């Protein structure tokens, strides 16, 4: 019978229509600006710079090694090194960025900068409401806009942030152990030197 297939299809449509009133499986839309789907933990959009502590300038993890700048496929990162150094979380003197710009109108959110960063400094944000009336200056983010606290990082990517903290703690312990070993070696060398000195007169 002609029309049977259409009727069968209409039954499906009717089932979906009625289902959309009570079954959340069938009505999956939300009315966006008022209502938002909670973000996924892994969601990524554009990069930001992590800082420790309360002051973003002194706590910035970036040491301006410029690896992300080189590896960025669309080359949206621009870094200028500062001549002044600052101490990092290990107490070592490191460079810091004088200028750190990311052009988010060029950035494609590929996360390669995050993967290549050896200092756990650049991470992905999940904020997506970036619309600006000025697309040139407005979308060129400077380091003061990019810097976000480690607390914020823990808020948006808890698992990843905890892992990062563990890595940094590991690095710190390694560094401390090395320092200790170095100090011990120094002490031993000193001891040996004093012994040699004290021995020297006996030789004569």
């Amino acid at each position: 019978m002609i029309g049977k297939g259409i009727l069968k299809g209409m039954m499906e449509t009717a089932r979906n229509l009625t289902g959309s009133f009570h079954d959340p499986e069938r009505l999956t839309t939300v009315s966006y600006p008022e209502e938002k789907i909670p973000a996924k933990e892994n969601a990524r959009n554009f990069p930001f710079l992590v800082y420790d502590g309360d002051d973003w300038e002194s706590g910035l993890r970036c040491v301006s090694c410029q690896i992300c700048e080189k590896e960025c496929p669309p080359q949206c990162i621009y870094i200028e090194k500062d001549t002044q150094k600052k101490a990092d979380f290990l107490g070592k003197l490191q460079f810091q960025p004088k200028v750190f710009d990311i052009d988010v109108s060029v950035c494609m959110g590929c996360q390669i900068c995050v993967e290549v960063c050896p200092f756990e400094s650049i991470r992905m944000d999940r904020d997506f409401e970036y619309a600006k009336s000025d697309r040139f200056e407005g979308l060129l983010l400077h380091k003061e806009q990019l810097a976000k606290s480690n607390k914020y990082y823990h808020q948006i990517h808890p698992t990843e942030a905890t892992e990062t903290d563990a890595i940094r703690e590991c690095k710190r312990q390694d560094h401390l152990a090395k320092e200790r070993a170095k100090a011990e070696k120094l002490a031993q060398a000193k001891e040996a030197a004093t012994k040699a000195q004290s021995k020297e007169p006996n030789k004569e």
Partner: protein
Amino acid sequence: MNSAQATPSSDRAQAGPMFESKTSDQAPSLDGTERMEVSMGPHHPSTHGVFRMDVELEGETVVKLKPVFGYLHRNHEKIAEGTSYLGSMPYTDRLDYFNSMTNNWAYALSVEKLAGIEVPERAEYIRVITAELSRLQNHVCLIGFLVQDMGALGTPLMYAFRERERILDLFESLTGARMMCNYMRFGGCRCDVTPAWLRQAHQVTEAFPRFLDEFEALLSENEVLLSRSQGVGALGQDLAIAAGVTGPMLRATGVNYDLRKADAYGIYNRFNFRVPLGSHGDVFDRYMIRILEMRESIAILRQAIRDIPDGDYVHPKAKLRGFKPPMGEAYGRIEAPKGELGFYLISDGSPKPYRFKVRPPSFINLTILEDMCLGQTVADAVIILGSVDIVLGEVDR
């Protein structure tokens, strides 16, 4: 095809208005009417992007058709020659933006061939799971678009997008992005799948057949769909093989050629699945092939999610920065949802590829559009184009 007499080449170079009609210099046909040349596109909703068809019509019948593409050309291959091997990975997402997972896989496969990197077993399973999920969402969307071209305004497409959304949610919770996943790495994947994610993937896979049944009840027996698609745009086996058509397009003509079986790349020889084949090569067969392929994909997904072993998700010696494959060349190909997707790479030992060539399935499947459309009506040409399953990001690169 020599269409120079029909259209001056200067007209061809500029994108005209949506429907540009003019009379051609050719002799009027037998019944005294003149042929009309219509330029469909590049901004025509039926062309799935910025694609133009120069159609010559006699009444409503297509007598000549020339696909014009390149409006979305963005130099993918040349850019890849100027960036590192890793830097090209996110660009491959943007080839066929429906299936970034399979694009990543094809590229990673060819680099792994080039550099001789082994992939851990768990990573192979993850790759199969993500690739089959993306095949599901590609096919379901394609059918949605195809029936929309036939005049089913929105309803099937919305149902298709609802299901696709569940798969995109999976991708987002795994990779962070819904479409531009950038997930595969040379020697594995970027991050590991969690047991919770696998459970979720299992749920989506188990829920999908019910949707497919509903979708088939909605469409497969619909008289309008049958009369619009059966016998339309038939493609012969010989022509399909000669033109290098691959994927569901080729299998709809009855040629048993699926790279998952023919090459058994990755670990596809471990799974028990069948390759659906058509017999007429018309639009309906292409529609049906996709429905059947989705059912087989579900079978593969079930096995892969069940069998996934523990282990590394990336080769422990694979490195991100300073990656330099030895001198040589490699061609890696996979069965992407649209057909054979291949990457041909030549390395001169430097961190950047010397040559980077993409073999895009939808571009090559599109080259025989005229042969399928001749003698059909304009409205059918739209459906035939829809059934080819093109993504202009991949056609134009």
